[in-house]
C-alpha cells in the first residue's frame, strides 16, 4: 500500500506545507512517515516517494544516506541513542553507555535478543546540561530521556516491553 493510501491525511498536510512547484521539499517528512512502522525505509517506500515527488529513487536514497535519523535496515523496535559527545562525556556518558551495555549483555550497535532495543552511540543531542542522556527513536517518534542512570534506563526498558505487549 502506498503512503498516500495508508496515511492520506498526513500526506496531504505535509504536501500543503510547501509551494506546489517545490514538492520535493516534502521528501524529509514523507521519509519519517515511511519508516514509522518498520523502523526503516523499505525499497518500496523509496519508489513510492520518488513517484510522488517526481524525483528519482536515487535522489530519495541520497537523503536516507545523508541524514542520521533515516535508516535503510531493520534494527530493534526502539533505537536507544546515547550521546557521548564532549559535554556529555565530561559528565560520565561513556561510563553510562559501557555500564548499560554490560547490563544488557550487548555491544554498541547490537540489538537485545527480544528485538526491543538497539543501543547506539550518537553525536550531540543538545541536552548537555542533563547528561547522561539518550533519545529513543521508535514507532511513536523521538523522545528524550535526561539525567539518566542505568537503573532508570532498565526501568524504562521494562515499561517499553509491557507497552509493546498491551498493543498486541
Amino acid at each position, binding site marked *: 500500500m502506498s503512503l498516500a493510501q495508508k496515511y492520506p491525511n498526513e500526506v496531504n498536510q505535509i504536501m500543503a506545507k510547501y509551494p506546489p512547484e517545490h514538492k520535493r521539499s516534502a521528501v524529509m517528512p514523507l521519509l519519517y512517515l515511511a519508516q514509522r512502522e518498520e523502523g526503516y525505509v523499505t525499497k518500496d517506500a523509496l519508489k513510492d516517494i520518488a513517484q510522488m515527488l517526481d524525483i528519482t529513487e536515487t535522489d530519495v536514497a541520497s*537523503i536516507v544516506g*545523508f*541524514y*542520521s535519523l533515516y535508516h535503510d535496515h531493520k534494527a530493534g523496535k526502539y533505537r536507544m541513542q546515547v550521546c557521548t559527545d564532549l559535554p556529555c562525556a565530561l*559528565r560520565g556518558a561513556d561510563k553510562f553507555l559501557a555500564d548499560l551495555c554490560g547490563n544488557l549483555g550487548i555491544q554498541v550497535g547490537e540489538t537485545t535478543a527480544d528485538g526491543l532495543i538497539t543501543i547506539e552511540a550518537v553525536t550531540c543531542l*543538545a*541536552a*548537555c546540561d542533563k547528561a547522561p542522556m539518550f533519545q529513543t527513536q521508535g514507532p511513536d517518534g523521538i523522545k528524550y530521556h535526561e539525567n539518566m542512570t542505568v537503573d532508570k534506563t532498565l526501568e524504562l526498558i521494562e515499561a517499553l516491553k509491557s507497552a509493546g505487549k498491551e498493543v498486541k
Partner: protein
Amino acid sequence: MAHVLLRHRDIPNLNQLDVYQKNGGFEAFQKAVTAMKPNEVTDVVKASGLRGRGGAGFPTGMKWSFIDNKNWPHYVVANADESEPGTFKDREIMESNPFQFLEGLALASYAVGANAAYIYLRGEFWQVAALLDEKIADMEKAGLLGEKLFGSDYSLKIYTHLGAGAYICGEETALLESIEGKRGQPRIRPPFPPAYGLYGKPTIVNNVETFTNVPLILAYGAEWYKSMGTPDSAGVKIFSLSGRVKKPGNYELPFGTTFRELVYNYGGGILDDRPVKAIMPAGASSSLIVVDDKALDTPMDYASVRTLGADLGSASVIVIDDTVSIDWVINKTIHFFKHESCGKCTPCREGNHWMLHLTERIHSGEGSQNDVSLLLNVAKQMQGKCLCALGEFATMAVVTGIERFPQDFQKAVKA
C-alpha cells in the same frame, strides 16, 4: 534582573497564549502591522545593536536590510537546528517561551515582507516541533496568523520543518538545501540568502534566540536594549554552561559578564572543587582557552573573548577541569566533526578522517611525537580551504590544544 529571553522563569505558564498576551504578548506585532512600515521595524532592530545569536554575531538589522526587494516572494527561516556540542538554549526557549520566539519570527517576516516562514528544527526536536505546531494553531485561531492580519493587507503563515540529524544543516545555506529536499550541503556564497535563499528567493535566516529578542526590542525600544551589555555587544545572551561544573544549565546574562561570575556564581564552581584548566566558549568549534586569573576575569563579549585567542560564538561554555587531558578532548571533538562533515569539500572530508585516525592513536597511547606534529600539520592544511566554517571549526580545538597544552600531548605519546 528580570529575564528578557527566559521570561518563563519569572512568569508561570508563559507558554499559554492567554498568559503571554496578558503580559504584553503580540502587542508589538499588532502595532508593527497596523502602524509601522516594514522598514521602520528593521530600523529599530538595527538601532538596537542586536547581533545574530547563532554564533557568527552578524548585525541582525543590517542583514534584514539586505533583502532584495526586486525579487519576490520573500521567506524568513528560523534556524532551530541547534547541534553544536555544548549548546542547548534554543530548545528551552521553544519549549517554555514559544510565543515570544514566534512573535519575533512574525515581526521579522513583516519587516522583510515575507508571507511564509519556516522553522527548521533538528530532527531530534520531534517533540518540540509538535509543541510549536500546537502553538502555531493557537495563534491561527486567535487571528495572529493567517490572512489580512488585524484588518491590514498583510498575511503570514508559519510552518515547521524537521531535519533528520545533520549538524551541517545549522549552516544557513545547507539548511536551505535541506528544506528544498536535498542533502544538507552548503552552497557557494555569494550570493547570500538575502539575495538568493530558499527556492532561489530572497530569504532571511536567523537563530531562534535572535528572533526571541525582537518583540521586547520593539516594545521597549532600541535604547532600552542597548542599555544592557557592552557597546560592542548590546543586550543579553543566553550562556549554555556545561562540562565539569556543579550547576550546568542556561543562564541569561548581559554581555560583559565575566567567565568567573558564570562558572562560580551561577555554575556553582567546579565538581569536587578542582581547578579549571580550559574553557571552550563556543562549543566544540571553539579554541581552547588556557584558564588563569586573567582569563576568568575577562568579560564575555565578542571583542574581549577574542583577546584570549578564541571566539564567543554561540556562548556555549564548556568547562574542563584538571582531571581531563586535552588529547582526550580533541579526540572527542574530532570524532564529532568527522561524523558531521558533509563530504562536499575534500580538505574537510579527508582532513577530519585522518585527524580522527591520529587523535585515536595518540589518545590510545600508541602515538608518537611525530603523530602530534602530523596532526597539527593536517589541521593547518585544512584551514581556509573549505566552503563553509565546519572545516575551520574542526581544526580550532586541535591547533589550540596542541599549541597551548603541549605537556598533555607529551604525556600521551610514547617516549
